[in-house]
């Protein structure tokens, strides 16, 4: 039986409709959260649908996943804010439209550890 963490991290997914990556990213995120005992229904999903909104959200592409406000794979400083698909690097070096599930697990585990120390 899965035990939910009392101090669960805030998980946000920002997406744009012009990019088809969101369902896969959400599925992988939900799986990783479940494996860590977190409730995947707590994910906050927000659509970014305009350039103005993209700037307001510091949105560098879809999907953007933040754990307690921190990007799971922080964008390079030169990466523009844009309504676009996000480019991720998998741990084996390949390019992907979604983050490496191990990066998701690491980011979530770190956030859990921080919250438990508070």
């Amino acid at each position, binding site marked *: 039986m899965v035990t939910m963490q009392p101090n669960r991290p805030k998980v946000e997914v920002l997406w744009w409709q*012009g*990019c*088809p*990556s969101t369902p896969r990213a959400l599925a992988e995120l939900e799986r990783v959260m479940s494996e860590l005992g977190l409730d995947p229904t707590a994910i906050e999903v927000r659509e970014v649908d305009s350039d103005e909104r993209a700037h307001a959200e510091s949105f560098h592409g879809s999907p953007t996943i933040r754990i307690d406000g921190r990007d799971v794979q922080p964008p390079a400083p030169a990466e*523009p804010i*844009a309504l*676009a*698909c*996000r*480019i*991720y690097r998998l741990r084996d070096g*390949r*390019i*992907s*439209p979604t983050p490496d599930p191990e990066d998701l697990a690491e980011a979530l585990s770190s956030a859990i550890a921080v919250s438990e120390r508070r």
Partner: protein
Amino acid sequence: MSDAAARLGLGDPAPALELPDTEGVTHSQADDRAAPASVVIFTCNHCPYALAWHERLMQVARDYADRGVRFYAINPNDAARYPADSLKAMRARVREEPWPMPYLRDEAQTVTRRWGARTTPDVFVLGPDTRLRYRGAPDADYDDPGEDGAWLREALDDLLAGREVRRPQTEPVGCSIKWK
């Protein structure tokens, strides 16, 4: 304007394709009358799907070059909003990693509208009569290099053998074309 312009259907004659490459040299698909097949790939620099499939598509072009198949890559995206797709960025990429096909710029997006491309990548294969014989994705999974452009290779193998393409249409998967 969206991509709702005329769509190129299977069996239709290919619309005109005459565009400059990254060095300003104009390429015309009309020059391919003697080719057994031609491949037109709408692609770009900024899309992870296009990048994930890129090396597979380059390898297909290398593998079929000696059989007379002609390949063209076209970047149609609005570079004002997506600077990674500017002509300058295209040129830098080609100089950094030589391509086995010309990388063409559709600045006016006219060719892209006429062909009805929707995503990057979006692959079109023409037969020796320059009619559309395959349209869709390179293979079943951008995330699996082992797929090796299987759907595109299958279409080319069928055409080169003088057969009907057994799987003439698949769903293109990738980033939306960035219209002006």
